[in-house]
């Protein structure tokens, strides 16, 4: 570091000695107090508003009641949402998604109607109805299937005389048991 020259030091000395003189502190005091009062005024207004809104925090029972009410509100919220979440979760595990729009008559409806007819067939009055060609085809198909299976069963029994005897014997026994109470 280069040593400062004599001139430089001289200049510094002069500047150090020549302290800036404040003409009057009263002006500054006055201005400062004025500004403080203005700020204080707005601070007071703000403070008033805050006191108005939040004055209750200094009243013990009000503060405690409001805090208790807040806690209760939060607990209610957690409880309600918890229940709803639980319900939604159990719903997703419980319900089953199905496709298709059409819901047909359950197939066992036919069997029920059949039983009804067997037990009290006289109740049905004859009506004129229409069914589609498709339904007739389905009906005939199932009847054919039933006939074929029954025929096969009959042939099996006919081919084996001992089996035939046994079946006939059982049928007679069953008839006797059914009516006997």
């Amino acid at each position: 570091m280069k040593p400062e020259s004599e001139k430089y030091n001289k200049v510094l000395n002069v500047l150090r000695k020549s302290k800036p003189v404040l003409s009057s502190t009263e002006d500054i005091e006055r201005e400062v107090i004025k500004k403080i009062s203005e700020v204080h005024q707005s601070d007071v207004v703000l403070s008033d508003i805050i006191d108005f809104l939040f004055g209750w925090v200094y009243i013990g029972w009000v503060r405690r009641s409001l805090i208790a009410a807040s806690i209760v509100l939060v607990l209610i919220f957690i409880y309600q949402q918890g229940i709803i979440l639980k319900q939604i979760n159990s719903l997703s595990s419980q319900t089953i998604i199905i496709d298709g729009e059409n819901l047909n008559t359950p197939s066992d409806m036919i069997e029920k109607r059949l039983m009804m007819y067997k037990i009290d067939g006289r109740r049905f009055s004859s009506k004129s109805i229409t069914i589609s060609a498709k339904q007739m085809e389905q009906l005939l198909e199932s009847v054919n299937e039933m006939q074929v299976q029954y025929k096969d069963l009959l042939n099996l029994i006919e081919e084996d005389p001992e089996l035939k005897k046994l079946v006939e014997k059982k049928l007679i026994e069953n008839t006797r048991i059914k009516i006997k109470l």
Partner: protein
Amino acid sequence: MKRKPLKLIVSLILMMVVSCDEPETVVTNYIHPDGSVTRKIEMKSVANNFSLSNLQVPFDSTWIVRDSIEINNEGDTTWVRRAEKLFVNADEINLTYKNDSGANRAISRQSAFKKRFKWFNTEYRFSERIEKQLEHGYPVRDFLNEEELLYFYSPENMQESKKKSQDSLKYRAMSDTIDSKTDTWSCKNLVSEWIGKFTNLTDGKGGKDIDRESLKAREDEMVKVVKDNSDEFDSLWANGILLKGFIGEANALKYKTEADSAVNLAIDNVFINFKDYSVRIVMPGKLIGTNGFIDSSEVLLWPVTSDYFLTEPYEMWAESKTTNTWAWIVSGIFLLFVLTGVVLRVIKKG
């Protein structure tokens, strides 16, 4: 031996034919937050036959009705009738049920709507309930296990898809088991109902032999007889053979009228003339509970068939909720307000 199958086949054909006359009906209830319901009915039939006596659910000239025809690739024609109406509340729907003159007028049906304000959420519940038919019936859950019950209450297309799935053998076997068990159930209901009606009609006049307790004690025997003789039931009953076997010859002669009346009542109740349909419900907001099925369009679905309300009331219900945004905002502001106050106090104290 050869006459039996023929009789069976003829009966089957007749039964199929007779059961084909009602349209395939789906009722969709669109529930609104204020409790009003837009009800839409879609009926599909192979014939243009939407006469009142065939209709499963009531509707009249106050509904907006639109008819159309659909023809599929195989050339089959389907007549479609769509009807729509806005009901102010569930009570209005109940009024239509009360004044129903359609196919299912004998059945007691009721809708109900509930709305509960729970501050953060509003919960809605809508239900349609069909009252049970039998006074002395047995619940089907006494005959079927849980898995079987689920299958039993499923819509038919769901049952069919299960039978074609990877577990097809299991579901086919289950289906047969359920058929057999529900057969027994129907018989038991019939006998139980007959016992109930008969003992009501005889009013204890017949003594201990034919009071409810003694008849109930022999119920299982009677059920077996009815099941085993279902083919000849009509003639065996008409000849009095069955009745004599049930209550003895003397009582059978004395109380034949009551027994006949009781059997007619029992048959009427067990084999009710009900035309099946389906119910759908669309709830406001987010679904939170139901006992129904959800289909691909996220609509709730229930099949309605007589078996479901034979011995117990059948209730189709759904619950949903909507968020009360304003309540959340108000609560948030309140909490923030209290928190700010507490924090300010802590700061000032510090």
